[in-house]
Structures are given as C-alpha cells and as structure tokens.
C-alpha cells in the first residue's frame, strides 16, 4: 500500500480511480495518479475539474468513489494527521477586510495546529517568502489583488507543509505579478510535493516538472513538460501561431472531444 519514492519516503499522494460527483453530475472520472516531490502542473480548460481535484487532495471534499492515500495512509482514516502536512491555497477566498495580515496568518497557524511558540517565527518566514513582511500590520482590505494572492500563498506555505496545493495562484494578476507569484511558488517548491493548477500553459512551463492535464474530468495527459512539448511540436506546423505546448493542449482536448 505504501510505495515509497526514490528517497524511501511515502508518496505524498496516491489517487486511484478517483471519482467526484456533485449531485448526479460527475466532475471527475476514474482519475489515477501518484505525486512525488517536485512541481506538478495541473492544467485544463475552465470546468475541467482542476479545482475539484485539488479540493479532494486538500481533504476539503470526500471522494464519491475511488481511493485516496495521503502520505501512505487512506485519507479518510488519517485525515487530521494528513491535514497537518498540507498547505492549500484556494482559487478565491473572501478574507475579512478588517483583519490584519499577521492576524489572519496567526489564525491560519491555529487552524493548522502549529504550536503557539513556533507561530511568530513561522509567520515571519511565510511573510518574508511572500514578500509581505512590510504589510504585516496592514488590514486585508487595503491590499491589492496581487498582494492578496501572495497572502493566500503565504498562508499555504505557513509551517512548511509537505504537500502544497495551489489552485490558480496567478488568476487575475497582471504579467508582472504573475512572474512574481511564479517565482514565489518556485522558491516554495523546494523539497516539497507541489501541485499548481492553471488554465495557462505559460504559467507552468519552467515551473512544473510534470504536467497532469484534465479535460472533462479525465486525465488526458500525464508526463513531463518536455513530453508535452514534443507532442505539440508535431502539430505546431499546422497551427503556426501556437507554442508547442498550446498546440499539444488543443490536440489533447480535441482528442477527448472525439471520444
């Protein structure tokens, strides 16, 4: 049950035939994969099931079917233990505007069961990593969109979780902010298992070691960025205005539609 990675550690995630339905509507179908340390890019069009998959991995949802192991244990049995090792950045969150940045992180530290004595240091670390240390005393309501994304990222990396799940961390940001957030994610991904979802290939190239592509709730590609590029290079001649990755993306989506 517990297949270790190449360093002998338990795999962060082993998903087997995961299925998720909202009512009668299926959102994920029989999704199977394992995640090892490194950055996995989760890509797909809007509504492909990326956020649902990330919520499942974050234990925010209970799968309708299939099995999910986190750190070598079934997620439904050791959920409290697993949650201590997970950092999750939701796609959007309505943060209380009157709250100060450091108070929000202090609250998240409590939610994560981080020991009280460690909190000040870890909060400072997270704020430094997210380049928000100078805004620690500011109210959340005065932060820009980019700063809010970085604050959400800061809460996700707080306490150094082993599994970092980032749902569209660059959504709604201008190019400068996107680059900034990408760099932060890159720094945060060292020695961790990171899943970053996006519907933009450009956000993941150079950041992800591996790409998991979803379409209509199914995994349509699972490989390295290079493999995706190779797949796209074959068709890029016909679509000269596209990058190999974009071409591959379109091709895989089209293949799924043909099924």
């Amino acid at each position, binding site marked *: 049950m517990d297949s270790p990675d190449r360093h002998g550690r338990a795999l962060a995630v082993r998903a087997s035939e995961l299925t998720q339905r909202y009512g009668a509507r299926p959102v994920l179908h029989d999704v199977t994969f394992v995640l090892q340390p490194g950055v996995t890019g989760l890509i797909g069009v809007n509504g492909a099931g990326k956020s649902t998959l990330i*919520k499942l991995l*974050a*234990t*925010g949802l*209970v799968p309708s079917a299939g099995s999910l192991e986190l750190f070598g244990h079934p997620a*439904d*049995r050791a*959920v*409290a*233990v697993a*949650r*201590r090792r*997970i950092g*999750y950045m*939701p796609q959007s*969150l*309505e*943060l*209380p505007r*009157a*709250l*100060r940045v450091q*108070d929000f992180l*202090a*609250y*998240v530290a*409590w*939610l*994560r*069961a981080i020991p009280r004595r460690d909190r000040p240091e870890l909060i400072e670390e997270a704020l430094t990593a997210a380049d928000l240390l100078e805004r620690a005393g500011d109210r959340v309501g005065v932060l820009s969109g980019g700063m809010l994304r970085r604050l959400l990222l800061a*809460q996700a990396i707080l306490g150094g979780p082993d599994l970092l799940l980032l749902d569209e961390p660059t959504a709604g940001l201008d190019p400068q902010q996107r680059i900034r957030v990408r760099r932060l994610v890159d720094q945060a991904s060292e020695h961790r298992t990171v899943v970053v979802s996006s519907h933009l290939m450009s956000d993941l190239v150079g950041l992800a070691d591996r790409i998991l592509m979803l379409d209509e709730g199914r995994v349509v590609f699972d490989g390295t960025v290079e493999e995706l590029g190779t797949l796209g290079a074959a068709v890029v001649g016909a679509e000269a205005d596209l990058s190999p990755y974009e071409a591959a993306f379109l091709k895989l989506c089209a293949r799924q539609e043909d099924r």
Partner: protein
Amino acid sequence: MSRRSGAAFLVPLLGVLVFAVVTLDNRFWGQWLWAADLISGLTVLSGPLVAACAAHLGWIQTQLDDLVRTTPRARRVPLRCAFQAWLWGGVGFALSAAAIVLATLLRPHGGPFPLWAAAIGLPVLGVSALFGALAVRVFPSRLTVIAVAPAVFLVGAFGPAPYAELLRQGPSTGSLAGLRFDRSVWLLQFGGLLAVAGVLAAALVVAGGRVRAVRGLLLPAGVALGSLGVLVTFGAALGEPGRDRLVVSEERPTVCRGVKPTICVAPSSVYGLRATETTLRRALGHLRAVGAEPPDRYEQALPGYLPPPSVGVVSVEDGDLRAAARSAATPAGCPQWRGSLPPEKALMAQELIGLWIRGREGEQVVSWTAKGDAWLKRVADPGAEAWIRRTYAQLGTCDFQHIRMPWTSPAGR
C-alpha cells in the same frame, strides 16, 4: 476569529447592560440578594447579544470555509466561535457584576450576598453563544446573524417551561428580602444548562466538519444523547410543583432604628431603613395628633414572617409617603392579613386612613367611592377624627369584624 472581531461586540454589550441597569427600577439597590439576582438576570439581554456575536464570528468563518475545512482544526472552528463569544460575554458579565457590586456598596447595604448564585449567568451565556454559532452554521446567512438575538430572547421569554426558564435567571422586579436561592433548584438549572450546552456543542461539532466516517459521529452522538438524558431528567425535576429558584429564608427584621416606635427591618432591607423611618414618623404624627395610639414597634413583614399582633407592620419603601401612610395604618400584625380570605373591611379602613394621612399632608386624594371622597373632604370634622381613633384601635387589636366604614356609621363617626 480575531480578538478584535469579538471585542467589537463588547461595546454594544456593555451599552445594553448599562442601559438596562440605569433604566431599571432602582429601589432595591443595597440589597445584596437583589444585586446577585440582577447580575445573573442581565443575561436576559446579554445572552441574545452573545448569541449574535457567536453568529457573527461563525458567519466570518463560513466565508473561509474552503480553506478552513482542509485544516486539522476544522471541526473545532464553530466551537471556537462560540467560545470566543462566550469569553467576551463573560468579560461583559464580569464588568457589569463589578459595577452592580460597586453601586450596592455606595448605598446602605446588607443581607446575604449569594454571589455563587449569579454564576449561573455564565452557562446561560455559554448556551446562547452555542446557539448563535449553531444557527449560523445551519443557516449561513447575514440574516441569521441579525435574527439570532431576537430568537434567543423570544425562546427565553415564551419557550416551554421549565426549559425556557433556564435562560431567565432574573432580574426580579420586587424586593427579595426574606428569600434565598434554593441550592437544589440552582444545581438542577446549572446542570440543565450544561446539558443544553452539551447537545448544542455536539450538534456544532457535527455541523462544523464533514464527517468522513461513522466513527466520527460516535463521540458527538454519545455526548448529545447523554446530555439529552440529563436535560430531560433535570427538566422533569424542575417541573415539579413548588420548585422555585427563590424560596422563603430565615431572614428576620433584626436591624432596628429609633424609639417609639422602633422600626425594624430585615438586613436585606437596610438600604431603605432611614427613609422609611422618616416618612413613617411623619405619617404617625398625624395619627397621634387626633389621639390615635400607634404601637411602640414596627417590623417589616417578610415572605416567611408576619410580625405579631403587638407590633405594627412596615413595608420598606424609599421615602414613599403612600407606602408610609399604609404602614402607619397597619398597627398590628394580625393573622387575618394572611388568612385565606382577604379582610375586606379592614383593607378598606386601612386604605381610607392612609388617604386621610396623605390628605393631611396636603395631597389631593380620591378614594374608590363618592362617599369616601365626601368623607375625605371633611377630615377636620371631629366626627371623622373619632372614626379614625376608633377604627385605628380596632386595627391595632385585630378586631376587624366590628369595623364600620364612616359612611355607614351615624354622622360619619
């Protein structure tokens, strides 16, 4: 969520408590028993506010639900909201208790001070907080935050007895001299409140996080069932006839002042002794002026004690002439006053003498009948004075059956 979120509620909480205390009928300041009852009784208002505070904190949490439910403490979050609201409610409770104690100390004070009884306000606030947190968890809406305070108030005011009474721990609108808190009822109520809190907390834990396995339900279900059992058992005991939170005490009128008459009140009523003595002496002066003979001693009647027939009965009022006139017109603790049938003629005579005293003080008084009004207009008539002397003597000897009203006597005598 943060300390500030809860603290924002402390200002209106204290505002409401100050308003309640200031606008309350304050005749009983100085009576420790009443003070204790007031401290716990303010939860009738602060409880709904604490519920609203918990609902507000819970509402903020629901905005963060996507994040919260992926964390190890997800199921504790609603409980934490309730706890924080309870904590702030407790701060308001402690501050208002301190203010009430101070206000009591500023006046002549006395009687037993069962501060322990006021502590029941804390579980009342706890139940209110849990109710607010649960309400917003089940109905996550801003409207719930607004609606929860009146809902808690209405449950306390109109809910089924004896359960609704758990939320109504005073404040009494009358003097509590001669009474005491019944410890057994207090314990039953305290236990009942803890049981209600147990049921609400269990429901909150279940509502606070998605249950991933049946065993996750076992502990909350066990707590809920156990608490429900305690609640039903204690509720049945509380519902038994004669179970009142306040029962007759051994307190007697032992604090005295003055001579001829000596006026004695219970230690709990010492706050009003001086003013009562002043107005009673004034009232008795009018009776003496027409030759009536008041008793040498007046004692306060208490729930468990009626002064003997040789002693007058005084009610402690804060310098109120109307009450003093009625006390003056009660020269004996006749057993008929507490008989099964009201001594109608004696009551009417007592009332008329009281009106006569107030008329002599210059008040414009009217009686319950035109004949009485006509009689009151000729109070200087020697015949009227004779009726006063005779009737006062009859009241003083408990000879109620021979009392005649002046308009039924020849020439109003």
